[in-house]
């Protein structure tokens, strides 16, 4: 009990002030009594979890003996009885750290000019000290893919963790994905030019596809030249070599089928669909091609005014039923970037439409780790994996019970303070002092 009190002091006072990254783990930590949500669908009711040097070295069902045995092995003991332990949540397709305030152009760095931009690397613009980034942690979101937007080929994404001094410090995986916005076969009329506001065929669609094809062909030809000075072709090489993943942004079923067919035609197999809002009729096709889907979060309008308003919540289950590997795309909602901290709630909402809660958890832990190719180290609470996890006093997937008390990235205890909690304390104190 004493040790626990000590720990709390440690968290609020010793671990520097907020935002300052924690030093490497030098004291081993043992968490006992919590429900462990492994991230792969399994749970351990009364668990015991230990980690040292940033790596989990114990995950087991606890009992009095096991607890007694282990409690002396670890430096810091956390009694988490009645609490829950989760692997750190992983967000895909974010522009965290690239944009600070959407309306202030000077703070916007996620959208380069140009159409085919494979050479663009998001990681070098990533601001590890972004206020938006730190605000993710108190809800359990600890890792993210940082991806560029814009153009047809937007550039390359990297994977970061949220407790770092700078981008080099933050990076987990460099340039692991290339992002392609598949052109839309349909557009809405430009009413301000006097056109009908309704949907119409995109008259440029085939031209855009042809342009993309030309770019792919050219890149493939150029990249075989040794010491080529063609930056774009060189940047495409790892894609053709099967070293990196294509994140294909496609919503409409036609986009999905055209996009996948196109990429498969180049022998590219590491494909992930992002968005997939109108994919319900092509799930079979997606499964057949063995392609994971990062499906848009459910808080958005359904396809049409006649569609079931619940449709956006039901799609994740339909995908899982097909056997597709599913994760969640947090974009497309109001105040979207800062709302990525609501990612656990998007998973919870999907689960309320027929998905087991533990499976829903895997949509934001194991599955994104698999998609990013970092599942060797992240995504589940398993021995040998990075000690990137958090403790919540209640169900982390529901808003009313998500209450993160501790969070660790590679064993390093994180501050859960943010710009926002600082303001909260400052003004709460102002009024309580004056009373």
């Amino acid at each position: 009990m004493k040790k626990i009190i000590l720990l709390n002091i440690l968290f609020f006072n010793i671990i520097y002030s907020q935002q300052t990254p924690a030093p490497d783990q030098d004291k081993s930590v043992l968490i006992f009594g919590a429900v462990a949500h492994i991230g792969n669908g399994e749970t351990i009711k009364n668990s015991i979890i230990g980690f040292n040097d940033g790596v989990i070295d114990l995950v087991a069902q606890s009992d009095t003996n096991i607890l007694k045995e282990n409690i002396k092995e670890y430096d810091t003991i956390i009694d988490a009885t009645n609490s829950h332990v989760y692997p750190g949540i992983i967000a895909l397709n974010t522009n965290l750290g690239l944009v600070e305030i959407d309306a202030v152009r000077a703070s916007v760095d996620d959208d380069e000019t140009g159409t085919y931009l494979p050479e663009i690397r998001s990681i070098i613009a990533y601001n590890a000290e972004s206020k938006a980034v730190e605000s993710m942690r108190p809800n359990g979101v600890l890792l993210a893919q940082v991806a560029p937007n814009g153009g047809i080929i937007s550039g390359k994404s990297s994977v970061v963790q949220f407790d770092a001094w700078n981008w080099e410090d933050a990076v987990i995986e460099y340039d692991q994905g290339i992002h392609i916005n598949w052109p839309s076969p349909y557009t809405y009329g430009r009413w301000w030019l006097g056109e009908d506001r309704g949907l119409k065929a995109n008259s440029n669609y085939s031209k855009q596809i042809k342009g993309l094809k030309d770019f792919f062909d050219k890149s493939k030809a150029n990249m075989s030249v040794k010491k080529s000075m063609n930056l774009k072709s060189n940047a495409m090489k790892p894609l053709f070599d099967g070293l990196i993943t294509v994140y294909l942004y496609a919503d409409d079923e036609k986009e999905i089928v055209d996009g996948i067919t196109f990429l498969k035609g180049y022998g590219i197999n590491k494909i992930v669909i992002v968005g997939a809002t109108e994919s319900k009729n092509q799930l079979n096709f997606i499964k057949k091609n063995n392609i994971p889907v990062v499906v848009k979060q459910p808080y958005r309008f359904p396809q049409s005014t006649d569609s079931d308003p619940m449709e956006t919540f039901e799609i994740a289950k339909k995908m899982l039923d097909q056997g597709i590997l599913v994760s969640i795309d947090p974009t497309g909602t109001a105040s979207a970037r800062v709302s990525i901290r609501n990612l656990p709630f998007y998973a919870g909402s999907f689960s309320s439409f027929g998905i087991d809660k533990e499976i829903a958890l895997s949509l934001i832990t194991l599955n994104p780790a698999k998609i990013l190719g970092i599942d060797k180290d992240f995504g589940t609470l398993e021995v040998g994996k990075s000690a990137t996890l958090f403790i919540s006093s209640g169900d982390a997937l529901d808003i009313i019970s998500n209450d993160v008390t501790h969070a660790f990235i590679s064993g390093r205890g994180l501050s859960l303070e943010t710009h926002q909690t600082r303001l909260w304390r400052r003004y709460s104190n102002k009024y309580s002092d004056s009373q």
Partner: protein
Amino acid sequence: MKRFFFFSFFLSFGLYGQDYFVVNDGVKTKDYQYNVFTNANIYTDKGIINKGTLVEKDGKIVDLGSNISIPINSIVFDLDGKFIYPSFIETHSSFGVKKPVRRGSGRSSQYEPTRSGYYWNDHIMSDYNSFGDYNYNQKEAKGLRDIGFGVVNSHRNDGVHRGTSFTIGLIDNQNESYRIISKKTAEHYSFSKSLTSNQSYPSSTMGAIALIRQLHYDSNWYSQGSSETKDLSLEALIENKKLPKLFDANDKLNVYRAAKLSNEFDLNFVIKGSGKEYENVRELKKFNNTLIIPVNFPKAFDVSNTNLNEKLTINQLRYWNQAPTNLGVLEKNGINFSITSSDLKNKKDFLKNIRKAIKNGLSEKAALDALTIIPAKSLNLNDKIGELDKGFIANFLITSGPIFDDKTEINENWVKGQRHIVKSNDNVNIDGNYTFNINDKSYQVKISNSLLRPKANVKRDSINIKSKTSLVDDWLSVTFFDSIDGRSSFAQISSKISSTDNLSGRGIDFNNEAFLFNIPKNKAKKESESKRKNSPGETFVSDVTFPNVGFGISSIPESRSIHFKNATLWTNEEEGIIENTDIIIDNGKIIEIGKNLKTPPNFSVIDASNKHITSGIVDEHSHMAATSINEGGHNSSAEVSIMDVINPDDISIYRNLAGGVTTVQILHGSANPIGGQSAIIKLKWGSEIDNMFFKGADPFIKFALGENVKQSNWSGSRFPQTRMGVEQVFVDHFDRAKHYGETWNQYNSLNNREKRSVNKPRYDEELETLLEVIDGKRFISSHSYVQSEINMLMKVAEKFDFRIKIFTHILEGYKVADKMAKHGVGGSTFSDWWGYKFEVNDAIPFNASIMHNAGVTVALNSDNSELSRRLNLEAAKAFKYGNISEEEAWKFVTLNPAKLLNLDNRIGSLKVGKDADIVMWSGHPMSLYTKAEKTYIEGALYFDIDKHKTKLEKIKNEKSELIKLMFAENTPGANLKFPNPLPQIEVDCDYIEF
């Protein structure tokens, strides 16, 4: 007798009118002749005169009837059973009028008028008369005459007040002096701005409505001589007061809005609709306005692509299916209307579409009235045109048969006694079967389409024989190709057509021998009529729902008497959250709450074990269900009201019911510091607009602070551009409003004699509204972000001795919560948004709980039609971030917004006597695993999760039925429409109407 006298005077005036014109190309000639039409079926208001005679002279009908003596100096046209109808009148047209030129837009917005000496708004052009920009257009005239029009009322369709129209006869071979029927016929209005000016105001439908209101207040005031300056627009308006007023609404909701305006100012608008009035006829029929309805029925969609079919909405499919019923529906509902050809791309579809409307329920009498008498009345010209009667202008059509029969053609279109041949058709109808005996063989010849291009089908012993037919002038030739005695040969007949029932002439037989013939027509079988009768029964027409979109309803749900047993009640009252408790509703109210209650007789029982029941969610800040949100044309638009532009068709209403929302305040947007008046509605999906308004609710107005009103995130030029300027906008307007109030008080305190000696103050809608605010009769909900401006607005209000009621958004409210509590203002905030613009950098999710703990009444709002359907989860966030109980957090979306809107005596908690606006949830209402299962408003069930599933099934089936029907029109080469559903827009504060 009087009328007759008047006419003879007019007639003689007309006769000698142009005698003073000089002739230099010959001798002056004068026509004295009468044109007389005999043996016609003449359509008059009193019925059809069979074998009737019509006498025309000098462009007027002199006489008509069945026993008319024909003057000696007559040209007689024997119409041989043809029909005469009054020609049609086009009320809505820009015939011959030069199109307005769009004024190039400058870089920045224009706020001032361009003209001086006229009204303060360029879009009011009451002084304009379209005749000045008119040139007779022969081609256009022919297009209209060919489809039956004789007279057209034309105006430049540009601007809110479009000035006056003129009316002319479509006469090619005369000049304007003869064509003009009226140079200034009617005033024309619309809700759309003029292309000829860039003046920003009005930038929305509600702005246009307010402008028309102010215009009429101003004109009344001006007509009393109260103005010290001249205004030529108002003078024209006053001068034209007695003219008919036509309103181009062009949209079913705008028809309703125009009708309301018409009623308010007694303007008797004749309103041009869109053809979709069948969707809101139950509201339109309450007004007496005559409508002008187009018959531009939509084309079928190209339904060959499954992917695209899925995007089509039920409303689009129904429009194609239901549009032909529109006129019939209007007739059945007792609405007067005329028919216009104006929206038709291909004018030739005009009669075809009217005939289609007749097959879909329109009576022939109503159709003809809608083309003649009603438009004449609408233009106040019904003493001259629109009927066939003595003294009327001789505008009439000669048709080959009853006008609405499919095969009938318009042969001639006489306008003011001037003949225009539409279809040179002296052809005689010889359609029928004839039997010829040639070379001892019997040939059956069936002639069809003889009025246009005759075709002969020839059979010998029911074997088809090749033949060729020609008609040159009135000579018919038919050539038969057949084999005779084993060799192929031909025979030919040739007949000058003079009679409908026999063919006579000469021919050559297959042996090249000449013969004479006189063959009577075989007795016709009446098969065509029975065929026609069968067809209407086959068409499937979807039911119209309210609204006519997916999830629309066929009847308004009624208030129920229900005993909910054993629920967890979130009372929001002293009792708090109580388990295993019953609640009984009846007659729209909560009548009893308690444990183990007895079910009153005839009440239904719902077992609510494991369910939670709460009062309905209230959203203080919504922008759903409205056509306009922002009127950004001025920095103050206090005169506009969202109540004028409710859109009951918005699917957001239904989606929000599915999220447990029952009452919302629809606010004006945040384009300007002083926004517009808001509407507080209950989400009574499918109800008439008037029944949605929260009865007895206090009026509110939207104010706004921050980046939007100072135009920070786009380029703007109007004052204010800083927060400093924003303060002065408020001070200035309240100063003026106060002064305005004082001026009126002073004036009203005068006795009648004194009143006559001073100028009456001008009634100003904007200042009236602001005066209500100062007087505490209207309440402010102010969009706000940072602490400086929040503090400022409270100080401004205090200076004028009133209080701000609500700060909405109020993201830095936590920084001035003590001041807010002292001022007595509530805070309606977002739960966890921030970081999207500079002024929300310090927005924190703890805001709600800090404000609450400091004594501020706190609510959570949506500002977004997607987010509002999960406000229960926003309450959960407020609970998560901060030190408050679940119960308090729940009040943030129910009782507290009700308090802020002064509605907590009616809604917001479960309390006996309050409205039965309640929601039954599947579990804890703030858990995201929970769903709203039943949503009641005043005891009526507006959302039910089980019925929802049935509705989905119905939508699916109806869509597939309609698409199946549409395939019938998906023929090769058919002119089809691309499936073009509208985008769904998440409407928020920044929404600009287009």
